[in-house]
């Protein structure tokens, strides 16, 4: 028997929860209704991008009786073949098909939902195209590369009436949920400031680089897609794209997005954002990597609360968010909840405030349930867009090195032409948001 089938569903989910630290999925059995596992009722899934981050998602979904992964696509043949083999082995069947071009996969009418697990510069295009084909989407974080892409993605979700979940899965962790709810209810009294620490870069490369032969089976032109063309170099492809501004925004959107998301949630700013941003980052002046190696930016919200996001240098490979208010501070990370007074921790878990934030304890389950109910998921793309926008605002402010005023309603900067032009980027033909 295949090892995957040798596990009970519960055991499988428990084990899959530790696959991939960046995914770190909660080890909770889906609470969704049973009896949905008949083939005709299964949610059928395809993947766009099946590298590092997709592996945890695939393993988790393999444990869902009412979900069936039918297709995977990736521009790297090694990735897509390995993923299809993994899925087929997991199901003990041979019907998961691998595609080189995601557009061919999206033309299949038998797919209900798409997991977008590409590098960041592809998120918006892949998700919008999937929704245009009537698919619901789960989009890995950060939602998009630019602010404009984010707004376009949200508009597409509404236009095509699609369920669209952002992969900021900390919203499906009770620890983060209860802390956000506590803050939302004024548990700390008047909130003063929020401090977010994010890890330093975990990858490094030299000051110069050279073109290398494209590995056999990798469609480098398609991997770049809308990003400006550059020659292939191993250091600038899988995973490391995170540290190249043409493709991502470094640790600000890799880790910062998770903790800024909790801050936005706690502040009740899910459909808004700060009004002022300033920061100072250290950006490499040479080499292949171009995202900030030292992050430090501060946002001011209209209610006066200040949010600071900055790099930590204590070697901890996780972030955390600390809320400071009249009654002291509370801190939450993936590993712990701490506070200036133990009583605050008891109050957090007691959940006695009048405001109740919707509770999800499994991000995948929440998405699948919403596909069935047509409700908006816990990390709806509007929320994901607003959180990603804060990251991008910080990144723009650090690059410009001056204080910027932001209108979260119009989603534009006041009196700064250059900053406004940095909200979007042209795409390499033939790619376009249209």
């Amino acid at each position, binding site marked *: 028997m295949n090892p995957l089938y040798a596990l009970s569903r519960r055991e499988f989910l428990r084990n899959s929860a530790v696959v991939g630290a960046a995914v770190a999925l909660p080890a909770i059995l889906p609470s969704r209704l049973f009896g949905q596992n008949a083939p005709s009722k299964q949610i059928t899934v395809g993947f766009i991008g099946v590298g590092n981050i997709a592996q945890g998602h695939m393993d988790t979904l393999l444990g869902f009786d009412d979900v069936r992964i039918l297709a995977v696509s990736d521009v790297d043949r090694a990735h897509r073949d390995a993923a299809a083999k993994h899925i087929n082995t997991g199901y003990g069947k041979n019907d998961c098909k691998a595609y080189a071009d995601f557009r061919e996969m999206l033309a299949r009418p038998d797919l209900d939902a798409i997991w977008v697990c590409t590098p960041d510069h592809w998120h918006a295009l892949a998700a919008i195209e999937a929704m245009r084909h009537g698919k619901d989407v789960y989009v890995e974080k950060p939602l998009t590369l630019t602010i404009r892409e984010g707004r376009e993605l949200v508009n597409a979700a509404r236009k095509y009436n699609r369920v669209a979940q952002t992969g900021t899965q900390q919203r499906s962790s009770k620890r983060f949920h209860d802390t956000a709810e506590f803050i939302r209810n004024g548990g700390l009294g008047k909130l003063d400031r929020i401090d977010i620490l994010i890890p330093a870069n975990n990858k490094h490369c030299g000051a110069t680089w050279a073109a290398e032969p494209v590995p056999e089976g990798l469609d480098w032109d398609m991997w770049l897609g809308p990003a400006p063309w550059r020659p292939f170099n191993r250091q600038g492809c899988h995973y490391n794209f995170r540290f190249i501004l043409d493709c991502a925004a470094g640790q600000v959107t890799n880790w910062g997005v998770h903790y800024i998301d909790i801050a936005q949630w706690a502040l009740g700013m899910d459909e808004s954002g700060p009004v002022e941003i300033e920061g100072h980052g250290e950006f490499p002046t040479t080499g292949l990597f171009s995202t900030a190696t030292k992050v430090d930016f501060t946002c001011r919200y209209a209610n006066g609360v200040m949010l600071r996001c900055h790099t930590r240098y204590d070697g901890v490979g996780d972030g955390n968010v600390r809320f400071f208010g009249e009654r002291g501070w509370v801190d939450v990370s993936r590993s712990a909840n701490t506070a200036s007074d133990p009583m605050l921790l008891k109050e957090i878990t007691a959940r006695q405030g009048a405001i109740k934030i919707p509770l999800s304890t499994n991000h995948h389950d929440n998405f699948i349930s919403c596909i069935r109910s047509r409700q908006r998921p816990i990390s709806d793309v509007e929320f994901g867009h607003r959180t990603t926008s804060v990251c991008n605002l910080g990144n723009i402010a650090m690059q*410009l090195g001056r204080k910027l005023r932001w209108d979260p309603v119009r989603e534009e900067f006041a009196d700064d032409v250059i900053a406004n*032009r940095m909200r979007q*980027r*042209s795409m*390499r*033909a*033939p790619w*376009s948001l*249209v």
Partner: protein
Amino acid sequence: MAENTPSTETRGGRSRGSSEFRNYEEWFTASPDPWAEIAKLEHGSDRTFATTVRSMVMNAEPAQRPAMETRLLQVLANPKSTEVARMFIVRMLALIGSEKCVPALAPLLADPRTTDVARYALDEITDPAIDEIYRNALGQLSGPAKVGLIGSIGLRGDIKAIGALIALEKNAGETAEVRTAATRALERLTTKA
């Protein structure tokens, strides 16, 4: 840029003549002009000077930007500028460019090998002159370059392009990609109109 060196300077009550300064400066290597250095950019090469120019562009006061735009256009026009340099330049023009870019970029827009290069700068500039050269270039391009340009027209919201896009959509001689792009751009433009 080289700083202007004063002919004399007084320090600690002692006056030093220009010859002393010449000796003093021999200790240093003059910094190359970053505006000249960026013309030599290549993939993988040191981009320290590009970083310098980028900082200058980003921090330029509004009154300084026209002069800076002129300097960027000069590097763009330099036949010795590398392709990577030209790409860098247009991305700087995307930040501070104006309608002054049109004469330099219109020929690049109409050449399918460089359409993207031109769009990187022009897409960000709101000016009717740019909408006009985009519409004009439609008839000169084909393939992916044309699809990309149609996307830009759609995003810019140029409703004057609706007629040309309808013609493309209906033209059986165009590729499926071009016709689909035209349909999508029209959907956006007619929703706005």
